[in-house]
C-alpha cells in the first residue's frame, strides 16, 4: 500500500515537473508546478511528516506560486518570445547531468537497498507522536544557530528589496 502511494506521488511529481519546463503557456507551467507541490506534500504525509506537508502547501503553493502567477499574468509573456536558441547551454548542462544520473543509477544499487532498509526500520525504531513538536524542538535546540542565521539572511534580503524598490519611487518623484 505504501509503495503504491509512493509510486503514484513520485510518478506525478516527475511528470508534472517535466511539464513545468515543457509546456509553452507560462500559466499552465505555473499550474503544473502547483500540482507538483501538492504531490510533494502528499509524499510528506506518507512519511508521517504532516507539519511539513501543511507548511509546504501554505508557503509554496499558497504564497510563492501565487506571486509567480501574478508576475506571469502581468508580464503577459508572448508564447514564442521565451524560446531563444538556448539549446547549446541546455545541452552543456544536461549532458553531464544525464551521465551523472546514469552512473548513479547503475553503480548505486547497493546505496538504494540500504536506503530502503533505512526507510523500513525508521517507523519501527522511533515513532514520533507529534511531529510538529519534534520539529520545533530540534529546530530551536540543535539547529538554533542555523535557524537564526537563515532568518537574518531573509531579513537582510527583505530590507534590501524594500530599499531597491523605494529608491526607484523616490528617484521618479524628485
Amino acid at each position, binding site marked *: 500500500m505504501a509503495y503504491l502511494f509512493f509510486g503514484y506521488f513520485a510518478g506525478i511529481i516527475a511528470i508534472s515537473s517535466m511539464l513545468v519546463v515543457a509546456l509553452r503557456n507560462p500559466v499552465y507551467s505555473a499550474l503544473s508546478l502547483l500540482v507538483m507541490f501538492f504531490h510533494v506534500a502528499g509524499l510528506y504525509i506518507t512519511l508521517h511528516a504532516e*507539519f511539513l506537508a501543511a507548511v509546504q502547501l*501554505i508557503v509554496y503553493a*499558497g504564497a510563492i506560486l501565487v506571486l509567480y*502567477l501574478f508576475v506571469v*499574468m502581468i508580464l503577459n509573456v508572448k508564447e514564442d518570445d521565451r524560446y531563444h536558441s538556448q539549446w547549446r547551454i541546455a545541452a552543456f548542462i544536461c549532458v553531464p547531468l544525464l551521465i551523472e544520473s546514469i552512473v548513479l543509477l547503475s553503480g548505486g544499487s547497493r546505496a538504494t537497498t540500504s536506503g530502503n532498509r533505512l526507510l523500513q526500520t525508521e517507523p519501527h525504531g522511533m515513532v514520533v507522536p507529534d511531529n510538529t513538536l519534534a520539529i520545533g524542538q530540534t529546530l530551536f535546540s540543535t539547529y538554533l544557530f542555523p535557524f537564526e542565521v537563515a532568518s537574518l539572511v531573509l531579513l537582510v534580503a527583505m530590507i534590501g528589496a524594500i530599499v531597491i524598490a523605494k529608491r526607484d519611487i523616490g528617484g521618479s518623484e524628485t
Partner: protein
Amino acid sequence: MTEFGLRLAISLTQIAAVMGIVVITVLILTLAERKVLGWMQDRMGPMEVGPYGILQPFADAIKLFFKEDIIPAGANKFLFTTAPILCLIPAFIGFAVIPWGPNQTFEVGGITVRPFIISDINIGILYILAFASLGAYGIILGGWASNSKYSLLGGLRSAAQIISYELNVGLSIVGILILAGSLSLVKITDAQAGGFWHWYLFALPAPQIFAFVIYVISAVAETNRVPFDLPEAESELVAGFFTEYSGLRFAFFFLAEYANMVLVSCVAAALFLGGWNAPYPGTILALLGAPSLAWIENTMWFAVKTYSLLFLFFWLRATLPRLRYDQLMRFGWKVLLPIALGNIVVTSIAVFIYQQMK
C-alpha cells in the same frame, strides 16, 4: 476488508451530512443576508417567493441552474471551466477537521465512531490554512482566463489581498496555539471547556481579544466581503473576477464565497469562542438528568456562535463603506501585522510567566 468498507461508509455518511449542512447553511445565508440588509436599511427584503420570501434561495438556485452558460470568445476554455471548481473545493474541504460537537463515541460493528468529528488530524488548523490559501487560485485563474480587463484586475487584486491578509490570519492564531499547545482543533476546543472564562478570547494568562479582532477583520478580507470586497468592486470593476461568468459557474463562485464565510466563522468559533462548549460549566441537559442528550445543547451552542459571527459579516456590510486599495494594503501591513506580532510576544511571555509561577 468489510471493516474497511464499514469505515468508508461511516466516513462518507459523515462527509455527506456535513456537506448537506453547509449547503443548507449557504442557502439560509443568501436569504438571511438580503433580509438583514433590508431590515438595516429600513426595507422588507425579498417578499415575493413563498410566505415572507422564505423560498427565495430556491428560486435563485433554479434561476442559476437554467441560465445560459456563456464562455467568452477570447477566454481560455480549460481554465475558465476549472477555476470555479478550484474555488469551490478548498472552501468545502476545510470542514473536514471542524469539531461539530462533543468528543463522544459509540460502537458500530466493532468500530468506534466519533459522530461529530470527521477527522482529528494533528495539524488541523494548518490544514485549514493550507487549503484556504489555495482558494486564491480559483479567483486569479478565473480572472485571467476570462480575457477581460475587469476580471484580470479583480483577480490580481484578490491575489494581493488574500496573500496579505492570510498572513494576519495565521499570525493571529499563533497566540491560541501557544496557549493550547496543539494544532488539532479537537484538542483546542476540548481545552476551552468549563465556562466562558475558559474560552481563549478571555482565558487568563493572555486573553486573545486583540487576536480575535485581527482574525475577524482578516477573515472578512480573505472572503472578499464588504468592506474589503475590492476584487469584485462593483463601482469600479463591474463584478471583478467573475464579471464574465454566468449560470452554474457563477453559482459555484457564489457558493464558494458563502462556504468560505461559514468556514472562517466555524474556525473562529472553535478557536476563540470555545467551539461547542456552552458558556457555563457542563450542560443544562446533563444537569436535568439526560447526559446522553447533551450533544444537542453543545451542537446548538456551536451553531449559535457560528451564526452570530455570520451576522457580523452582514452587519459590517450594511455599516461600512469600501476601503480604497492602498488603504487596504496599508491597514493590513502597517496596522494589523504589528498588532498580531505584538500579541504573539505578549502571549508567549505571559504563558512563560504563568508556567514559572505554577
